[in-house]
């Protein structure tokens, strides 16, 4: 029983990692209608910036907030400079540009910082906490907590602010948005900025757990993508729940389905997700788009 519990807890903490990045993916999808393949690498790169500052002796929180600002500005600049020329191109073309960004960030990070893993400090204590039979670390709880907090902020932003509403409108119908006075390209830039910011926070939360290295996000991004899909790509809450579920599911499959063991746990976890989606094609919490014939 305690083994099961410990697996679930450990799954939740890994799931928290997925959830953080999934949230950033969903955010940018909601704000720009594009799945940004470079999301993970942008987060990784921001985290390196934070690492550089901390290494230079800055206090953690100063580095944290400075990185957030840089990430936001960086996101805006990327949209303005790199995405804008293909703003009107087909979505797949934009996706290709994000793949290009992915390789650039990954490669440049490796070039500047090398591929040696680096520890990244956590704002939370890493001392283990005993909860009955299971042990968690404050760090893991913190990661999950931050993703929930980000989720709440995002929900508020999208549902209850004028700018959030405008951003949703832009994704749905850019022309009509312009006709009500929404500055579409500003919204897209803002969307990239926000997504980069959320990604940077996620990166700084995740790095203490998985260590900082240029490829730290490649695996996570895949899981995050699966999580976002499981939860529903148009549902931030779904992304978080999807991420946590993904983490737990993976652990339980690896632990209890013994003939599969850890060797096929990813495969089985993905299969379970696909089966779920077969029942509910727009994700657990996603809404199907409204269409009329």
């Amino acid at each position, binding site marked *: 029983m305690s083994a099961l519990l410990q697996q679930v807890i450990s799954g939740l903490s890994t799931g928290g990692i997925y959830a953080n990045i999934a949230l950033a993916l969903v955010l940018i999808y909601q704000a720009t209608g594009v799945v940004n393949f470079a999301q993970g690498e942008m987060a990784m790169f921001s985290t390196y910036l934070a690492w550089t500052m901390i290494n230079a002796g800055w206090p953690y929180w100063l580095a944290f907030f400075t990185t957030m600002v840089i990430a936001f500005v960086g996101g805006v600049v990327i949209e303005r400079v790199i995405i804008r020329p293909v703003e009107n191109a087909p979505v797949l073309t934009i996706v290709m540009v994000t793949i290009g960004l992915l390789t650039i960030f990954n490669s440049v990070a490796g070039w500047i910082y090398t591929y040696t893993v680096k520890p990244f400090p956590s704002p939370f204590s890493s001392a283990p906490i005993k909860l009955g039979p299971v042990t968690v670390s404050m760090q893991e709880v913190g990661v999950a907590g931050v993703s929930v907090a980000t989720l709440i902020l995002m929900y508020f932003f999208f549902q209850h602010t004028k700018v959030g509403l405008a951003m949703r409108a832009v994704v*749905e119908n850019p022309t*009509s948005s*312009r*006709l*009500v*006075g929404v*500055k579409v390209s500003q919204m897209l830039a803002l969307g990239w900025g926000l997504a980069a910011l959320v990604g940077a926070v996620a990166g700084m939360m995740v790095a203490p757990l998985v260590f900082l290295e240029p490829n730290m996000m490649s695996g996570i991004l895949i899981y995050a993508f699966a999580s976002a899909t499981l939860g529903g790509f148009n549902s931030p809450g779904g992304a978080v729940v999807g991420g946590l579920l993904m983490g737990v599911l993976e652990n339980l499959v690896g632990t209890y389905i013994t003939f599969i063991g850890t060797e096929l746990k990813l495969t089985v976890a993905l299969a379970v997700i696909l089966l779920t989606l077969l029942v509910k094609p727009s994700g657990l919490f996603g809404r199907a788009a*409204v269409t009329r014939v």
Partner: protein
Amino acid sequence: MVPLLEARNLEAYYGWSKVLHGLDLTVEKGKVTVVLGANGAGKTTLLRAISGLIRTTGEIRFDGVRIDGKAPEDIVRLGIAHVPEGRGTFPNLTVLENLRLGAYTRKDKQEVRRDLDRIYTYFPVLKQKSNSPAGLLSGGEQQMLAIARGLMLRPRLLMLDEPSLGLAPVVVADLFRIVRAINEDDGVTVLLVEQDAVGALEVSQYAYLLETGHIVSSGPADELRQNDSIRKSYLGY
């Protein structure tokens, strides 16, 4: 005669092909002006040209200020609301959110709330359904929503593109009544593009007739109603 909107030698392009050929057009302040024309004559293009959605040459002035070459989002801020053909609502946003977007450029929160109430009195059905996604409304309701959204801007010029399209006769009649009320009670100037010439000429004071990108005739609505070719092509009597 006070012109609110003036177009001089207006030409517009889709890609490389010219679709408006040197139009001159005036919309008088406080009046309803209608543009009639066959399918494909360039009526929709005209509205899109005015609101800055397509490339144009020539001159467009709104209240004396040149607006040609400006971006749509800036033109909206001057008080021109464009209700596009096919309504252009946001189907996955709620009715209320659609309406809030209509007032996106306004800063006067109090007034916006008051306008919302007033618009609900024009279109009570929108109030009932204010929390359902716009995409679930029927065609007529969506058209009302589109017009209501335009009104939320508290525009000085309201441009309606075929508002009667696909609507039941009884709804069309209602719609024209509302357009007239908006014009008379609120003093909103209206530029209307319509196929239903009978209803349109009834509510409007001035009319233009467009054929393949040229204005072929224009005049007070009453006069045009007497015009033989218009009667034959557009009114059917």
